[in-house]
């Protein structure tokens, strides 16, 4: 009797693991390792995303700093979508788009540009008699219209008070006459709403950042 019990006990001690036990143990191990790996990957991704967010926020701030360094009356013409109305001659201004070091542009973005300035600009197509960067008379007030396109019916860009864009606070009075009209205020604006938008390709997909503010001419008289 005792001998039988001892033999059974020895046999059980040397029996090892069953296939089911091994499979269960391996499954648990695989699940634990995969969770750990996922955690590592998500931490690395989060770190990248935080870094990109910081770069984007800093780039937006720098973009606004650039505008502050410009003569206020020329900001819209120098940084709108069309090169036709650049104060120093067509194509001489920085334009609406800019690149950001460290952020990858999305497919289809022009020349790797990640950011762009958005103003209350209305694109008017098919106007007659406007030349590139020429003066256009409207409502008894001389106004400059940015334009692009060839001869015939060029597309013009106008800074408008009646444009509807809630995030820019539009429509609103831009020239301080207490009236919201449908004229081009490219030359007489006193307030300039602007939104800096950034769109870039991240490892986690398409990401966006934007900041909106309003510029006014805060410089003292006589400043450049």
């Amino acid at each position, binding site marked *: 009797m005792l001998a039988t019990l001892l033999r059974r006990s020895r046999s059980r001690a040397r029996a090892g693991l069953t296939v089911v036990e091994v499979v269960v143990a391996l499954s648990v191990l695989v699940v634990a390792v995969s969770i750990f790996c996922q955690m590592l990957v998500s931490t690395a991704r989060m*770190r990248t995303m935080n870094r990109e967010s910081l770069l984007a926020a*800093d780039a937006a701030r*720098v973009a606004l700093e650039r505008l*502050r*360094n410009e003569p206020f009356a020329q900001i819209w013409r120098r940084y709108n979508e069309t090169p036709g109305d650049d104060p120093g001659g067509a194509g001489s201004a920085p334009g609406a788009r800019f690149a950001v070091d460290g952020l990858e542009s999305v497919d289809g973005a022009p020349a790797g540009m990640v950011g762009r300035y958005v103003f209350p600009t209305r694109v008017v197509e098919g106007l007659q008699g406007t030349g590139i960067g020429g003066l256009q008379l409207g409502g008894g007030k001389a106004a400059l219209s940015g334009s692009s396109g060839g001869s015939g019916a060029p597309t013009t860009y106008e800074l408008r008070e009646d444009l509807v864009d809630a995030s820019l606070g539009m429509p609103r009075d831009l020239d301080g006459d207490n009236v919201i009209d449908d004229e081009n205020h490219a030359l007489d604006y006193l307030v300039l709403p602007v939104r800096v938008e950034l769109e870039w390709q991240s490892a986690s997909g398409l990401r966006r950042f934007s900041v909106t503010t309003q510029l006014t001419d805060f410089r003292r008289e006589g400043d450049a």
Partner: protein
Amino acid sequence: MRRACTSSGFSLVEAVIALALIGLVVTKLTVVMGDAQEAHQHETTAMALEDQAMELIDKIAYAIVGSSRDSLDPNPAVPFFSPRMRYAISLGVEDGQVVWGDPEEIGLVEEQGELYWGQNLGLESERRVVWANTVSQLLEDELPNGEDDNGNELADELGLCFVLEGSKVTIRLTLERVDEAGDRIQVRRETEVTVRN
């Protein structure tokens, strides 16, 4: 007979093969763990340096932003630069006149890679604080060869440099540190700020 066979344990060959395999796995694992640890240390140092660079560049920008264009000295425009900038910030207006603070300066001591902020430098009331001592001799990707190696229109610019354009100050900073493995890590940050007064 069969029972004896199942309870016979491992043969010497089996044990040797098992030990060899375990040894191989442990060796590989050690190598991988070592590499991972080294990479982790490298990344940690780089991140710490990047955080420090971001913090410093913001500190410099916010220090200068309240100054006036007239108070900035020197006035280096591209292709020139300065490793130090003197300025005075506006404290407010009194009797219709702007009240300016004491002259301040942010600069680089090249030999020590030391970035300092100072007020009333050279006077009895001088205050001087070292903000960092990890500034690189030259800006990242720049070589001391009299040429513009990193494409920023400046030649042989130092690890901290200021460039003016109108009222806009461009600040460039490169920090450098050697990690535990002896690798040199550099981080470059750049920003622009337009002085407000």
